[in-house]
């Protein structure tokens, strides 16, 4: 079964890394995964989008066509990609004002706030988001996600990133319990 993720936000938020780790986790579980990206010419700021397709079968087209999960960490990303969202779920940061014109199923979670306050560093919002995506989709197990995080984050930041991942998994578990 093909599962598609779109991770959107602003350049510098680390969403590309989150996409890479998600794809790597899928591969560690023996699945196929393709990760693609699109971004503007800016080094940071500007819009940024990473996509991950995970499947047990051969993946021909590498991009998301109708994402099962859309992550939006900024208002811009929410408005741009929320409108395109069909059957899949939107996961938006709580700081973003919801738009009644966007009708896809939506959960708002305090991803940026959890990174900044509960985990203690706002730069790990991408890994909190990864935990949320992993938890809500169930497409990869949490221990595999931990292994994938450890293989891709800079040395010396392992504990911080694991804390962020677990915080994200907890946010997902909370959201699931409410649903």
């Amino acid at each position, binding site marked *: 079964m093909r599962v598609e993720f779109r991770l959107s936000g602003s350049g510098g938020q680390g969403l590309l890394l989150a996409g*890479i780790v998600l*794809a*790597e986790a899928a*591969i560690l579980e023996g699945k*196929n*995964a*393709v*990760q*693609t*990206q*699109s*971004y*503007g*010419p800016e080094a940071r700021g500007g819009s940024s989008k990473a996509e991950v397709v995970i499947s047990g079968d051969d*993946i*021909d*087209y*590498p*991009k998301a*066509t109708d994402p099962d999960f859309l992550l939006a960490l900024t208002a811009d990303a929410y408005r741009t990609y929320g409108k395109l969202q069909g059957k899949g779920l939107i996961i938006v940061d709580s700081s973003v004002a919801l738009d009644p014109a966007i009708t896809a199923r939506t959960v708002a979670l305090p991803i940026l706030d959890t990174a900044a306050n509960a985990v203690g560093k706002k730069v790990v919002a991408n890994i909190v988001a990864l935990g949320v995506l992993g938890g809500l989709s169930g497409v990869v197990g949490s221990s595999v996600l931990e292994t994938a995080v450890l293989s891709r984050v800079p040395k010396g930041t392992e504990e911080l990133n694991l804390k962020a991942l677990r915080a994200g998994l907890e946010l997902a578990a909370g959201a699931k319990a409410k649903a």
Partner: protein
Amino acid sequence: MPKTVKLMQGNEACTAGALAAGLKFYAGYPITPSTEIAELCAEELPKIGGKFIQMEDEIGSIAAIIGASLTGKKSMTATSGPGFSLMQECLGYASLCEIPLVIVNVQRMGPSTGMPTSPAQADVMQARWGTHGDHPVIVLAPGNVRECFELTLRAFDLSEKYRVPAIVLTDEVIGHMREKVELPDPADVKPVRRAAPKSPAGYKPYAVESDSATPLMAPFGEGYRWHVTGLFHDESGFPSNKPEVADKLLRRLMAKVEKNAADIEDYATESLEDCDIAVISFGSSAMSSLSAVRRLRKEGKKAGMLRLKTIWPFPETVVRELAGHAKTIFVPEMNLGQLALEVERVVGCRSRVVRVGKVNGELFRPEEIYNAIMGAK
């Protein structure tokens, strides 16, 4: 060492393929979307006694790899459209002087500076005819990350075997895409090396045994003396203005690729045997195309796919065979009809050829190709 399975980026796989081929020298000027190749070569080459140089521009880059190749080192540069344009003059020099080298062109939207982070496939004709004069060149187009490894390795092999510059033509999607790749055991990789003379005595750098043959290449610095010039030259390598020398040389250069086309041509097919709708594509457009073809098959339509892994020499035989039974041939590409020109040339009026071009800086969505096929009347 066992096979390794890992999540790998296209540009990373190109670098790995080059290193597996025996890359020892990289000179380049970083440019989006090819920069990861330069970064990785800068990291890896010093570890194996190789050299990485960041040059002042792309003219310097190709000049430097020409020099390095003359000393016997396998050499490469990587770039994108604007840099590839600057390399054209020296590309002709390498063709005429028969200097093996590999250029990876990760295509982006052009012309000019264009859209640096957006994919395109509009350098198909430039790769063939970008430098002036008739000249031989080999162009390979990976269709996924694994092929970035395989075809970069193959580009070195073909370039060494025929002493022809080889271009690996990828694009922003393939270059930046990450997917699961299984790399071969290094012990199973047997890279080709240019044939070298046995002794400096009587060495004639451009003497050959037959009209389509490749001359033996002596590395500079090992006691051989030979002259390298972008002027037409005779067997000794020294300039000649004689019409018969020029004619013989240029015909031999072209024959190296033309007469060995069957060895160089490579492609992949799916459901081609009984198809009456055929899609011919390459690179990232072929991924969208394949998705559309599979959907058509599921719906009971006789659709098939030919994906070119060698673009130049253009694989005429397989396209000609296809023209015999496919009523319509669609050619999706991220340009306004460059590969389609070659398809039209080979097919003639035996099948209808439909150009499907996209030039907005985005990869085709599969339904765009599906709709183009279903909507064609």
